[in-house]
């Protein structure tokens, strides 16, 4: 009786899921496979093969991959350092990485623009020091830089989370059985943090693959990602069918990368980040 009543509390949420998660995705699918006269077509999806779209998609995949690898390489040592510091309140770590989000995301990216632009702060400093200046803005590297900046916390937090769950006893046991620190790392810490690594990869790769604002701000319109293409279809060309078709392709990539990660995540911990 009691069990039945408690389940009822999910009611509003289930309505919400159907109305505002499932239905909208069905709308995208509907627009994606129809043309302006509402008749069925696959043209919008096949349009991904057009050179300009394909180029954007491949560039997005490439930049997202580079961004994910950099985030992983930066975060792993950091998570280990943080874990070794044994904070009294674990929440504190989360706070440190969430706090920057209270400064508007767009302004933070703009600040990088100010720092990195050709006559920006860094180059001004370099100039007064009579050092060679660098041209960095409006290149794919700058876009990757911005993505790493924006998505780094989403790699650090799951990594730190999975690392903090490894009990000290297990490390001690491995040392006791003769493992040196490198062997402890390779045989114990790495395998036990694999679910955190996979969560982090998903949390970074998907938004990096689909981002369009960072490339706008730091790529100066010269770096066209698949997200930018879709945004233009909707906001400038007003071709919702084409935009939806390309979105479906994007969704397929998102789902594929999630499925790939899930199949490698035996722990079934899913993507609990916080």
């Amino acid at each position, binding site marked *: 009786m009691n*069990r039945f*009543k*408690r*389940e009822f*509390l*999910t009611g509003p*949420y*289930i309505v*919400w899921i159907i109305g*505002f*998660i*499932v239905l*909208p*995705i069905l*709308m*995208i699918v509907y627009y994606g496979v129809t043309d302006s006269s509402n008749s069925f077509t696959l043209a919008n999806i096949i349009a991904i093969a057009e050179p300009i779209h394909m180029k954007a998609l491949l560039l997005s995949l490439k930049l997202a991959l580079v961004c994910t690898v950099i985030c992983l390489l*930066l975060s792993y*040592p*950091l998570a280990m*350092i943080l874990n*070794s510091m044994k904070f009294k*309140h674990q*929440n504190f770590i989360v706070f*440190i990485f*969430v*706090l*920057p*989000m*209270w*400064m*508007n995301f767009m*302004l*933070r990216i703009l*600040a*990088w623009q*100010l*720092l990195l632009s050709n006559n*920006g*702060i860094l180059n*001004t400093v370099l100039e007064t020091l009579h050092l060679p200046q660098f041209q960095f803005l409006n290149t794919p590297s700058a876009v990757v830089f911005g993505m790493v*900046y924006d998505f*780094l916390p989403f790699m650090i937090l799951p990594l730190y989370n999975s690392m903090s769950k490894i009990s000290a006893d297990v490390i001690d046991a491995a040392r006791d059985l003769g493992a040196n620190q490198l062997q402890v790392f390779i045989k114990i810490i790495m395998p036990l943090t694999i679910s955190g690594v996979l969560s982090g990869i998903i949390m970074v790769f*998907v938004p990096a*693959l*689909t*981002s*369009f*604002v960072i490339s706008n*701000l730091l790529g100066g319109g010269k770096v066209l990602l698949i*997200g930018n293409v*879709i945004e233009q279809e*909707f906001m400038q060309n007003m071709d*919702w069918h084409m935009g939806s078709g390309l*979105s479906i392709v994007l*969704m397929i990539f*998102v789902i594929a990368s999630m499925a790939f990660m899930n199949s490698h995540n035996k722990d079934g911990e*899913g*993507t*609990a980040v*916080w």
Partner: protein
Amino acid sequence: MVKKTISRIYMALIFLFLYLPIMVLVVLSFNNSKSRVKWGGFTTQWYISMFQNKSIMDAFTMTLQITLTASVLATIIGTLAAIGIQAMRRKGTAILLGATNIPLLNADIVTGISMMLLFVRFTKLGFSTVLIAHLTFDIPYVILNVLPKLNQTSRSAYEAAMDLGATPLYAFYKIVWPDIRSGVFSGFLMAVTMSLDDFSITYFTKGAGVNTLSTMLYTELRKGIKPEMYALSTLLFAIALILLFIMNFRSSRKNDINN
């Protein structure tokens, strides 16, 4: 010892990377110069003039309204949902948690576009559509914060309370609530953070005339950013920082008392 020093330096560099843009913005908010790269002396004028700028104040009010309304509603719906999910059988739990992950993991741009397509079919874009969109991505954060706390609470304590004659509501308030309170609160905080920081989803679901700080910034990019925006953001950040310290202080004091 050397290892420790290298660790510290590495950590400092990462934090510098994360916080450098924020420092730049804070400095710019006090910069008495239109140039964004030259220091023209200290001023607080932007902190005064931002209150006189109608479009900034409108966007600010809109941002606050959406953030707070969405966060409060999301906290209620999400907490109730979490309690329900915990009582469900394994299969139902799996399906609902899967659905909960969709807005978290799906591309923001796809989430935004899909909702826009739905909204324009049935209604006009405006405040309420932005609110619904924010609720949709806020609720999962609440659920994911509350559910672990619920799983930690002892079911038998709740049942014991009822056995001793408490009504379900009273048992919940006395037994379950104290255990999940911190989860509900951090869920609410995450919802506020995500709403405040969102651009993509708001961008697609807002109608003409509705502007949050993010979307206003985006449209004004080419015209150049008003220094008042730096001031306003610095102010918001400072408030967050102060709130955080108060909370940390309170919770560590509570811990000390418990010890």
